[in-house]
């Protein structure tokens, strides 16, 4: 049977069919749906770990135990999991171990545009890259076989367009894999210097063995058409090239992106007149070609930045451009915004009003940095709000402690924020940390986390008590506020900033998009009372706009949260 499937859904199907038993991941666009989808198969145990390092270590532990195991993350997640990755490269596996890492060229939902192939090269771990949903499934299955064949974890590199495009996939049955019997093996799995030193040459040998395999692997393939133009590409870039050039070019489609083969590339370059390496982000295949003495075009023609597309290939290689109609006027941009009823809004309005320095973090609440709230000074990576605030306050002293806060979501706090809080308590700054507890991992589309009381399958689970946790860390002053009540929230922030001790404020209200959250009827503005003062616009609610000098509320968006009524001095909203 053929089914339309997202790349991520097809990947999950591949895991299922390959007999994968254990999956542990941390969400991150565009990788999240792989784990959500695999959790739907009862034969696979799947969980959300608190962060990517934990997830990868769980997967490695399961592999040591003899099971086929899996973990997924977005590109920056692999930085967090880099520590286990680099040494898992040394230990190798028992049961097959597959790591999905999803790059985001064009930064649709990411804080940077890093190319995860560098991690594969640096850790000397095999990496393969599918180019559509059918390949996502096939490559996921192949990855397990290769992992066991070469005794290595295998990374599957995804990218936004492959992960989030649907195409047809042929479904097969699951092949059950029995646990491989567990045998204690100190030389292989205890990576202290004396053992690691003996594993390292094996790592080098293994990558050479895989390179030899790559010369003949069906995952790499050549398509000869007209040989005036030759294209070397992997993943989605291959699709762009085929779309643009069709049979006007020949293709070397690489499924294995680390290690890269040498002979088939040389052979291809010999047979084609002009060879282009088409790769998104960094010049990894191109550099490999040059290292092997091959003269190819790459980043002299294509950019290091953003996505490629069929039109870019057509323009750069064939010099063809398309005709199109332009709207005759300036079209205002539409950046993402906090949803109507978002509990983060009230908190950020208070912060913008107080004018404090806000050490920010990553999640829906990063939108607090956008106009009109503009209440965020920094956003770096998950967890950095708290540790960064400590550094900021150490540098600028007691004055700064009274005028600065860190903001961090519940999921992000569990991911890597709490270690920063330990540092604040231990190394003593009187910093104020605000945990935005909306009872869910919002930004990535509603995943459970250790504070929500539910697991990935939605079953009841132990919930971390944030108040108790902060106390246990050594923070004595812990307050809980409801951000829908702005006056009270503002008062509490002021009190905690004034204290000569570190403090935590938990701003608690569930995300307005959660199914169990009951909405009030939409509010209306009484135009006889409205004086057009625009105070209500300061909260940046997408449901509120001004038409003919009067406030109007879009009834399709308003959920009746009521924070605009607190802004209105004339009582026009009700």
């Amino acid at each position: 049977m053929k089914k339309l499937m997202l790349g991520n859904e097809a990947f999950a199907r591949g895991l299922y069919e390959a007999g994968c038993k254990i999956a542990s991941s941390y969400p991150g666009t565009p990788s999240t749906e792989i784990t959500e989808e695999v959790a739907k198969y009862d034969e696979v145990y799947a969980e959300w770990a608190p962060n990517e390092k934990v997830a990868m270590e769980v997967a490695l532990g399961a592999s040591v135990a003899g099971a086929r195991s899996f973990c997924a993350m977005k590109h920056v997640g692999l930085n967090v999991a880099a520590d286990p990755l680099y040494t898992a490269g040394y230990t190798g596996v028992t049961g097959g171990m597959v790591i999905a890492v999803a790059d985001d060229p064009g930064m649709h939902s990411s804080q940077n545009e890093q190319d995860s192939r560098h991690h594969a090269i640096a850790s000397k771990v095999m990496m393969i890259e599918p180019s559509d949903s059918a390949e996502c499934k096939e490559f996921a299955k192949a990855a397990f076989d290769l992992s066991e064949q070469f005794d290595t974890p295998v990374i599957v590199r995804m990218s936004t367009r492959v992960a989030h495009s649907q195409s047809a996939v042929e479904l097969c049955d699951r092949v059950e894999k029995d646990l491989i019997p567990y045998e204690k093996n100190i030389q292989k799995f205890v990576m202290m210097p004396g053992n690691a030193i003996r594993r390292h040459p094996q790592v080098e040998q293994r990558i050479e063995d895989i390179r030899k395999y790559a010369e003949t692997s069906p995952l790499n393939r050549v398509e000869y058409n007209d040989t005036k133009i030759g294209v070397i590409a992997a993943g989605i870039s291959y699709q762009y090239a085929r779309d643009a050039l069709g049979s006007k070019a020949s293709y070397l489609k690489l499924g294995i992106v680390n290690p890269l083969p040498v002979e088939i590339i040389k052979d291809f370059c010999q047979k084609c007149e002009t060879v282009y390496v088409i790769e998104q982000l960094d010049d990894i295949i191109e550099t490999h070609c040059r290292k092997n003495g091959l003269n190819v075009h790459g980043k002299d023609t294509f950019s290091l930045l953003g996505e490629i597309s069929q039109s870019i290939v057509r323009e750069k290689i064939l010099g063809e451009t398309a005709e199109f109609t332009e709207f005759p006027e300036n079209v205002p941009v539409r950046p993402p915004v906090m949803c109507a009823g978002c509990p983060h809004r009230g908190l950020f309005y208070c912060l913008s009003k107080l004018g404090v320095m806000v050490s920010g973090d990553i999640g829906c609440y990063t939108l607090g940095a956008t106009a009109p709230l503009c209440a965020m000074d920094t956003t770096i990576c998950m967890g950095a709000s708290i540790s960064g605030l400590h550094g900021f306050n150490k540098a600028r002293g007691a004055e700064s402690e009274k005028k600065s806060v860190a903001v961090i979501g519940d999921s992000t706090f569990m991911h890597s924020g709490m270690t920063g809080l330990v540092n604040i308590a231990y190394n003593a700054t009187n910093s104020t940390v605000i945990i935005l507890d909306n009872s869910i991992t919002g930004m990535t589309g509603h995943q459970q986390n250790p504070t929500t009381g539910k697991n990935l399958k939605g079953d009841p689970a132990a919930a971390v008590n944030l108040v108790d946790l902060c106390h246990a860390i050594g923070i004595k002053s812990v307050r809980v506020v409801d951000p829908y009540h702005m006056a009270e929230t503002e008062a509490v922030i002021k009190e905690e900033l004034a204290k000569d001790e570190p403090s935590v404020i938990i701003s608690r209200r569930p995300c307005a998009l959660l199914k169990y959250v009951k909405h009030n009827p939409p509010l209306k503005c009484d135009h006889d009372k409205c004086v057009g003062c625009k105070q209500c616009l300061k909260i940046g609610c997408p449901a509120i706009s001004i038409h003919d000098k009067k406030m109007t509320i879009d009834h399709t968006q308003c959920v009746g949260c009521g924070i605009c009524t607190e802004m209105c001095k004339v009582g026009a909203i009700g």
Partner: protein
Amino acid sequence: METKSIMIVGVGGQGSLLASRIIGNVLLSQGFEVKVSEVHGMSQRGGSVVTYVKYGDEVNSPVIVKGEADIIISFEQLEAARWLPFLKKGGHLVTSTQKIDPMPVINGAAVYPDDIIGKIKAQGVDVIAVDALTLAEQAGTSKASNVVLMGVVSKKMQFEESVWQAALEQCVPAKFLELNKKAFALGRAAE
């Protein structure tokens, strides 16, 4: 058959994912190779979102570039203006007349252009404008404007109505099916 391209554009949260899945299933049932490219994550939070549907004998790139779309389906007027350059010469634009102010307009940093539909028509583009929101509310919920627009588009494509009905049944949860069928019928009867 040459590859055909349909773009669905709107504001994050308006239901473009369901729309693209309905069309994708219609096309798959007709034996085409199909690719549907969606946007998840950040822009789903009220930003401008776009979904691509491509079909034919062979489909490579899942994205649509400027001048390539045979049909653009827009859930909102400003988004129709924004994505207009992606329409092929001679292509069709189906748009809801709904307007949603983006934050720069709400803040007064930018102005929402007036008479967008008139100005697009003046460029010689074939435009079908439908008040999908009102029709959706007639069907029972403002959330069904996406399916109303599917009803409108179904008349611009060559497939039997039953094929669309089957796709609806596949993509919509049973308890909302009746409502969505009504929305679809209202869209099909519109214009």
